[in-house]
Every structure is written in C-alpha cells, then in structure tokens.
C-alpha cells in the first residue's frame, strides 16, 4: 500500500500549505518570465480545493483527485488551471479501479497518465521549460524504482526544478522572451516541485 484516501487528502493539504506560503515567490518567478499571476492563480485554486475537500467525504482516492481536478479547472484559469486540472482528472481516471488505497504500481501509472494529460492539453514536451520538466524526471524515477524513496523523490524534483533555470523556453508565456528566459526558474515547474515535495513528506510519515 502506498497512498490511502487520508494520505491523498494530506498530500493536497500540504501542497496547499506550500503554495500559500510561496504565493509571492511563485508570482515573482512569473513576473520575471511570465505575467506575474502564477502565485495568485495557484493560491486561489488551492484555497478552493481545500474548501471543497474539507466538506466532502471520500471513499476512494480517485474521488479526491476528481474533486481536485474539477476545482482547479473551474477556479484557476490561465495555463496552469487546465494543465493541473487535466493532470488530476487523468490521475483520477487511472485510479478508478482502485479503492480506498492505492499501491505503488497504480500510483506510478496514475502519474504517467497525469503527465500524458498535461502533454495532450498543452502540447509541450520535456525541455520546453514548463512544469513537464519536473513531472517527467519524477515519473522516470518512479518507473525505475520498486518502491518510493521519499527523500530521493524530493531530491529528484528539486534538481529538476533548478535545472529549468538553464533552459530557453519554447512553450508558455516565457517563450515570448526567447533567450531572456534563461537564468530564471519556471514558475509552473516550481509549483510542481511543491506538489512532489508535499508527496514526499506524506509518504515519509
């Protein structure tokens, strides 16, 4: 067993905490190479997610992710809303067969489907300087492992987000800047790092 319903809720709660704490930092990152709303968008979205999850009862992890997805899709907007929303929607669909608990293989598969959703929706690929540049290494790690090492997960995500600094953006708003996008961390990659950092924390307790 990897993730219970309660774990999945904790995951979202921890992510929310990091997003709210780093609202301004995310916005600063987005001001540098985007339009300065990523922190605001994520903060608004996860606030709404928390309100939703708070008052609901869940039988399965898939249901939790479905609510997260629908809330992000309908409350965030911008690029990150449909992308994170689609990711959680695909993760929810992938976990439909599972119940209260999700094992490692199913979860890895869900992350795989989530990333596919992001790619399908945004038509970006690894190396375009987007959130994909965090999701892809994380998925790779999971696929190559037999079980989760939370510490390694966090480190992988951390290294991945830092690496976006050196990429020239070709997708999203940062692409308008061309070479000027280099030397800046991608904001969506950073929020994805928070997501996986929160996951690592949940899995290590």
């Amino acid at each position, binding site marked *: 067993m990897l993730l219970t319903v309660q774990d999945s809720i904790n995951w979202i709660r921890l992510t929310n905490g990091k997003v709210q704490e780093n609202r301004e930092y995310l*916005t*600063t990152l987005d*001001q*540098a*190479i*985007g*339009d*300065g*709303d990523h*922190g*605001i*968008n994520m903060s*608004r979205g996860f606030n709404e997610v928390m309100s939703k999850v708070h008052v609901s009862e869940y039988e399965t992890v898939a249901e939790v992710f479905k609510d997260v997805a629908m809330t992000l*899709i*309908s*409350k*965030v*907007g*911008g*690029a*990150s*809303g*449909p*992308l994170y929303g689609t990711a959680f929607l695909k993760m929810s669909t992938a976990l439909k067969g599972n119940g209260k608990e999700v094992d490692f293989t199913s979860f890895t598969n869900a992350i795989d489907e989530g990333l596919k959703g992001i790619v399908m*929706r*945004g038509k970006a690929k690894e190396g375009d300087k987007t959130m994909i540049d965090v999701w892809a290494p994380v998925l790779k790690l999971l696929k190559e492992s037999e079980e989760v090492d939370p510490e390694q997960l966090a480190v992988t995500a951390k290294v991945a987000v830092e690496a976006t600094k050196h990429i020239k953006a*070709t*997708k*999203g*708003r940062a*692409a*308008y*800047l*061309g070479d*000027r996008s280099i030397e800046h961390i991608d904001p969506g990659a950073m929020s994805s790092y928070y997501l996986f950092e929160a996951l690592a924390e949940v899995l290590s307790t």
Partner: protein
Amino acid sequence: MKKIINDPNMVVEEMLKGMEIAFPNRLKVVPNTKVIVRKDAPVVNKVALVSGGGSGHEPAHAGYIGAGMLDAAVVGEVFTSPTPDQVYEAIKAVDGGAGVFLVIKNYTGDVMNFEMAAELAEAEGIKVDKVVVNDDVAVEDSSFTTGRRGIAGTVFVHKIAGAKAKTGATLEEVKRIAEKVNDNVRSMGMAISPCTVPAAGTPSFELADNEMEIGIGIHGEPGIERKVITSADEIADELTQKILEDLDFNDSEVAVMINGLGSTPEMELFIINAKVNEILTEKGIKVYKTFVGEYMTSLEMAGCSVTLLKLDDELKQLLDAESSAPAFRV
C-alpha cells in the same frame, strides 16, 4: 502599489458590477458568472461572437459588446484566462441556434480554456468554431513554440467578424472572414513603464528612467528587448518597420490602429500616428482609416502598439459597417 480599488482580490467582481450598472440597457451579467452579454442575447439565428480573456485590458473585451460586434465577453481574473465553465456559460447564453464563434487570443491558457469550453458546448449539441488571433510580430512565428501573441489586432477581428455575423452569415463564413483578418493584421508594441497586477502588489518589471521595452505584450510581461528610450519618431519607425517586414503591404490600403496601453496620453498617440502615417505614405501604402486611442490595454502600463490591417473591398465594407459597441462606435 497605488490603485483606486477596494479588495485587490475583488477587482474583477466589482468592475463587472460597475459595468453592468453603467450600461443597463445594453449589457447584462449572466447571474453567478463572470460573463457579460448583450442585453438582447441570444439573437435568434445569428452566429454569436464570444471573446474574452484575462481582465486588465479594458475596454477589451466588454466594451466591444454590441450589435455588429461581440455578443459576450468572458472576464477572467487580471491577466488570467477565464475558466472553461465560464466560457461555456457564455456560449450557452448567446447561442441563437446559428452557432457560436470564439475569438481567442493566442495564449496557451486562453486556447486551452476556450477549447475545453468548446468541447463542453459541442457535447451539448451547440455548434462552435473559433479563430486564434496571433498578430504580434514581436514574437517569433514557429510551429515548435507557443507562437505569436494576440494583441490589439484582435479588435479588428471582433469588428469585422462581428459585422459579418450581423449580415446573417453562417458560422463557416464568419470563420473565413475572421481568419482573413487574422492573416492580414500585424501589430507590435512597446512600453516605457510596467504595470501592477492588483493581487500581486508589485510592478511586473522595472525599467530605468531612460529605458524602454520593445516588443511588449499586454500582460505586463517583459518585451523582447530592453534599450535606451528613443524619440517618438524612432519608436514609430521601429514598430512600423517590423510590421512591414513581416507581411507585404506594398500598394495596399490599410487600417491603422495606434493603441495606448493604459497611461499614455492621447497626445503621444497622435504624435506616433503622425509619423506612422508619414512612413506609410512614403512607401505608397494608403491609409484608409485610422483608430487612435485605448483599445487593448495592459492596466496602467505606459506605452503603445501599432497595428496595420491590410484591406480589400470586403474588409473595408465590414470595417465601415455599423457597430453600437460603446468602445467601437461606427
């Protein structure tokens, strides 16, 4: 941050209220949404035009609602594309049976959210089609990247596609004309000061007293090049040349739009217009009509954009057609 606002997180809601009250006979807000539609929506058997995007670009897009232009505007948070459910609400509110046409500015977020809404609408049996406007020559045009942004040229798409829809044209015909406008319109902007998203509280970038950003967008994002500010004539020249290099305007007639980004005095826009007109005239390009003012802004950013639309008889006629939209009366 210094702004005439109440709660920075409520600016969009309060703006919508102020808009609806200002035009009680023209506009209505669809209850519990951020969708603003013509008072008489839906217009039966007319293709309905829906546009929108983040707010902060006023008068875009609500100011372009009116007979002969848009049927609805979907209003997102400041500089943030509206969500699919909101766009879907707009589509439902204005569909008069002839289908709904979406005018989308080419930003990853806008395209995704509007497309998701279109999927929802199509699932309900509403015919939907779209154009994705990408007039900004500052950005490289490549199929491997996000591609060009939609900026002030979008207003010409609203105007001309709106006029076409008013003639009773089909969804396909409206799409054809919208794409024709998009194919023939080019813009480029610059700024001498940034803007501040209310909920962010700090300016989007900083410029020294002698600096300007060339190739700026309309979301407070930095431009493609920062350099020492030059004269109005040189600025007009740089923007116009970039546009003329991108599309062959030789011997053609054009509509010119000199658009203010928010806090540029009209005086300065007219100074730019004088030079743009001179450049075009020198090159034998005939100016058919000129628009000077704030059409697509970026909050209180100081700067301007130049837009040229290459015209033929069909486009001229539709450009000249009546429009009752408050921000684009013809």
